[in-house]
């Protein structure tokens, strides 16, 4: 048991630093995908709320399709699909073999596109739960539309959206484990490397689980804090 723990130490033979670096990659790709998804989600939510019929149909199609297809397939699409585009270009420049987006970018893209669908629903729900009175008041005092959006609509919707966004974040975090298929050295990939090197798969995958759980707990705390702050003044 003690040797197991020592294996994760920070000495020259220890896997500690590698696992922590991998954890940083996990958080990074998840955060990047989450941010991308957030941007997409706002656009799609806006299309559903204020767009004309074709836009609404497109948006509905997007959310329906992307919530019904396994994430793994989307990741394959981004990873191998990017290779389709990039390989010929890279060959023109003299590169050889299969060239694709690095795992990080492919992963971020896939996570972004999938989470965008969930973001859109959360934002839409949050928008409808903001009382129209508060928004009307801003219009009534003559706020120009962009200013109103920035100073009133966005903060109010953000406050209602926080719990849902917290759920999407947890989902994105777990999704990031699938990015390991692209070769990106996040937690799962690092655990795979470690387990094949040391022939101790249980140890490494268990450690991976512990890392994920830790990140989950910390994320939960942060989102709780945020929800508290943004609920100031709420009845």
């Amino acid at each position, binding site marked *: 048991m003690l040797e197991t723990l020592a294996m994760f130490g920070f000495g020259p033979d220890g896997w500690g630093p590698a696992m922590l670096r991998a954890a940083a990659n996990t958080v990074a790709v998840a955060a990047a995908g989450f941010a991308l998804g957030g941007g997409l989600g706002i656009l799609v939510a806006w299309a559903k709320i204020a767009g004309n019929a074709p836009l609404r149909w497109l948006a509905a199609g997007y959310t329906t*399709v992307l919530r*019904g297809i*396994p994430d793994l397939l989307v990741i*394959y*699409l981004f990873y191998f699909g990017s290779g389709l585009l990039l390989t010929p270009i890279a060959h023109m420049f003299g590169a050889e073999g299969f060239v694709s987006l690095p795992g990080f970018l492919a992963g971020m893209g896939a996570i972004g596109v999938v989470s965008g669908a969930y973001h859109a629903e959360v934002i839409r729900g949050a928008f409808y739960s903001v009382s129209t009175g508060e928004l009307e008041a801003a219009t009534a005092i003559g706020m120009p539309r962009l200013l109103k959006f920035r100073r009133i609509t966005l903060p109010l919707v953000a406050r209602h959206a926080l719990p849902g966004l917290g759920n999407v974040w947890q989902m994105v975090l777990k999704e990031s484990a*699938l990015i390991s298929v692209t070769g990106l050295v996040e937690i*799962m990939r690092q655990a795979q490397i470690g*387990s094949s090197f040391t022939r101790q798969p249980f140890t490494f995958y268990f450690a991976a*689980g512990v890392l994920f759980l830790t990140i989950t707990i910390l994320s939960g705390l942060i989102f709780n804090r945020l929800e508290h702050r943004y609920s100031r003044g709420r009845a």
Partner: protein
Amino acid sequence: MDFEFLSQTFLKLLHGIPVTLELATLSLMLGACLALAFAVIRVRRIRPLNWLVIGYVYVFRGTPLLVQLFIIYYGLAQFPEIRSSFAWTYLREPYWCALLALTLNTAAYGSEILRGALLSVPRGQIMAARACGMSGLLLFRRISFPIALRQALPAYGNEFILMIKATSLASLVTLADVTGIAARIIAETYRPVEVFVAAGTIYLALSYGLILLVRLAEIRLNPDQREPAPGAGVSAARKEVNP
């Protein structure tokens, strides 16, 4: 977009549907049994099991399914005790490992759904049952559970769809489900877009077929929720608070 290739791929992918459906349905049903046990433990606060269930749910909802799957499929092989036990005939097979991982995972989510549903059964109806002399298993079987089930159906329908998507991870432990076959075709032909469209269509069809089934089940189980008669229900204006 090569439509010839697309339809060929589509036909090949159909072979993966049995595995996908089997894994999803079996794991959901087994997981639901577990989930019911967990939910009852949580609602009745049976200590110390209560805390164990809380921990179980937290861990299984807080870690990726992939981690759970790999621990079971790759990780358990690390222990000689397991390799020499009778369970090894099952645990060395990717199918049973995937089934186990999916079951344990959906049990965690399902237990929260059922817990919420049990807690939302109107207390008045339970009180009326007690007043007639019902208690324990009889009360649960005849009143609490049927009402909770109707409540849980929409959320459990959603869970079914999530399970269909989750089975795609079985492809990562060598199983030939729809995603597994798709991955193989992509690796052989480098044509991810067509394969994605074909596989995606199959998953969407499965999901929507399921949604329809669940809606049908909901309608059948809730005959009282077709249009209510006018003037029905308790008058809110005359409600009084009882001491």
